[in-house]
């Protein structure tokens, strides 16, 4: 899919999901394609996250333009109102990792080595070996090995959203929210 739209819908979250997935199935779109990214946005406030948890408030959906058009035309009938609609050029998220575990570092590297099509990684990483950190210590512990990395994943919305969900499942990695590079609908 070439064109991605970000649609912010005001209304019951479950109703939005049902509408979008139902529309997708009815129009031959893979129902896994529309991405519901509530709580994953960079600017999400605590209130927004809480509302997303209880299914109230508004939903942010990444989907093809036909879904946006359908929501704008027919959503009001079921209490769903589109409050924001934009064309998405790209999506990105920042991340950082720090671990004293070689095994965890290898997993992190392997995950970012398999980015998928249309996704780029701007990355800085480093390994530090501290000879003073060998052996067991009590409170004066420093680690012999430390892997530090940080970066930004940029690219097509579907690939970036999927990547963010994989990265969020990794130990020792802190993931930032999704940031959209959007263009107003002409």
């Amino acid at each position: 899919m070439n064109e991605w739209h970000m649609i912010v819908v005001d209304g019951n979250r479950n109703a939005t999901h049902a509408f979008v997935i139902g529309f997708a199935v009815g129009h031959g779109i893979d129902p896994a394609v529309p991405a519901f990214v509530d709580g994953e946005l960079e600017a999400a406030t605590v209130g927004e996250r809480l509302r997303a948890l209880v299914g109230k408030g508004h939903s942010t959906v990444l989907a093809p333009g036909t879904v946006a058009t359908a929501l704008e035309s027919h959503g009001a009938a079921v209490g769903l109102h589109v409050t924001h609609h934009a064309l998405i050029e790209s999506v990105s998220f920042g991340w950082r990792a720090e671990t004293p575990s070689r095994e965890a570092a290898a997993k992190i590297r392997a995950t970012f080595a398999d980015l998928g099509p249309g996704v780029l990684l701007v990355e800085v990483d480093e390994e530090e070996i501290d000879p003073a950190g060998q052996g067991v210590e009590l409170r004066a512990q420093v680690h012999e090995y430390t892997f530090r990395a940080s970066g930004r994943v940029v690219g097509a919305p579907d690939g970036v959203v999927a990547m963010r969900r994989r990265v969020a499942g990794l130990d020792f990695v802190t993931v930032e929210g999704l940031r959209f590079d959007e263009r107003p609908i002409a």
Partner: protein
Amino acid sequence: MPEGTLTDLGTLLPVWSALPFAGILLSIAVMPLLMPTFWHHHFAKVSAAWALVFAVPFVVEFGGPAWHELAHVAIVDYVPFVILIATLFTLGGGIFVRGTLRGSPGVNAALMAVGIVLASVVGTTGASMVMIRPLLRANRARRHREHTVVFFIFLVSNIGGALTPLGDPPLFLGFLHGVPFFWTLALLPEMLFTATWVLALYLMIDLRLWRREDAQVRAASDAPRQPLGLDGAHNLLLLAVVVVTVIASGVWPGPEVMVLGVHQRVGNLVRDAVMLVLLAVSWSTTSTAVREANEYSWSPIREVAILFAGIFVTIIPALAMLRVGEAGAMAGLVRVVRDPVHFFWASGTLSSFLDNAPTYLAFLSTALGRLYPGVHESVAIPRLIAEHPSYLAAVSAGSVFMGANTYIGNAPNFMVKSIAEEAGVSMPSFFGYILRYSLPVLVTTFVVVGWLFFT
């Protein structure tokens, strides 16, 4: 200044003379968290600085009696304490549990139960070092591991050490100050209740998380299994000799001799000599492979030796003021902490954030100052045990159990966290540990323990 006149000193010292003691405890608590690299390289200087801030004016002001106090604390407390810690750590570090284990809830709980028993024999630090690696190996394939390490810290690194003076440094200090070796067994009901309850909570949580693991993790593996076994098992025999030696020094204290002007029992000197021999035997007879597998090094012993040198010097004014009760500058504390349940929570709350060994000594002295002000410890402690044992039980249980409340409450907590992180377990942050585990699991348990046993 003859022994016993510490009482007089306690009435003379101002409250601010305890500031270096507060300073060193706060440094030990906070600096490894806020500036770990600085602490790693400079903790000896920090410890020495706090010790000198107290010791220099103390000696200048009080002269000979001050020297005597410093020599007394070194000979009676510090040297035996460091020798015991070094011996237990070296013997414990010579035992390696090998074999393939599957990290199911039952196996994890069994490993922790073994660790709890071991903790009272080899000390919480030694037991943590011996048992954490088999536990991490067993759980290597699991996705949910953090909670297992946290409960290991609760049970093996802290609560399990409550039953003997070998189990946790505060209890050994109590032993050095005259608490009989077997008296700590009186904590069995508190310890059994707490350990069983916390272990049961762990099992409930782990069973739930076990069901969420991938099917291949839960299924029994067809891969070849290494049978369970112990390397360096002869160290268990040496540990038995440690137990007998410590008990013997309590049963047969022997005649008194003067060491640097301080009265010391021959039995204690013999005990310390035997410990050093056992340490040397363990070191020379245990294979290097076992030590390497446990990542044994002298660093923890060096660390204890340096930090406790500072602690034992700076604790002198605090103990002296507390022991004279309301006649000293710390009368306010003595007046506020009155009942056993107060002692349980006060010693426990402070042990949650400061090292639990000096905290135990401070509250033992507070109890003595409240109940037997001005009476020498050698008389006051037997009377405390005979007349008000619940005070000592409350201080012991509070200091030992609540060291688990934070990463900084007890030295092995940090060690276990570090070993687990290096093995790829993402451990909770300092506040995450408190909010997600200590408050809901431990503090609620301690509310029940305090109500059941100390009110």
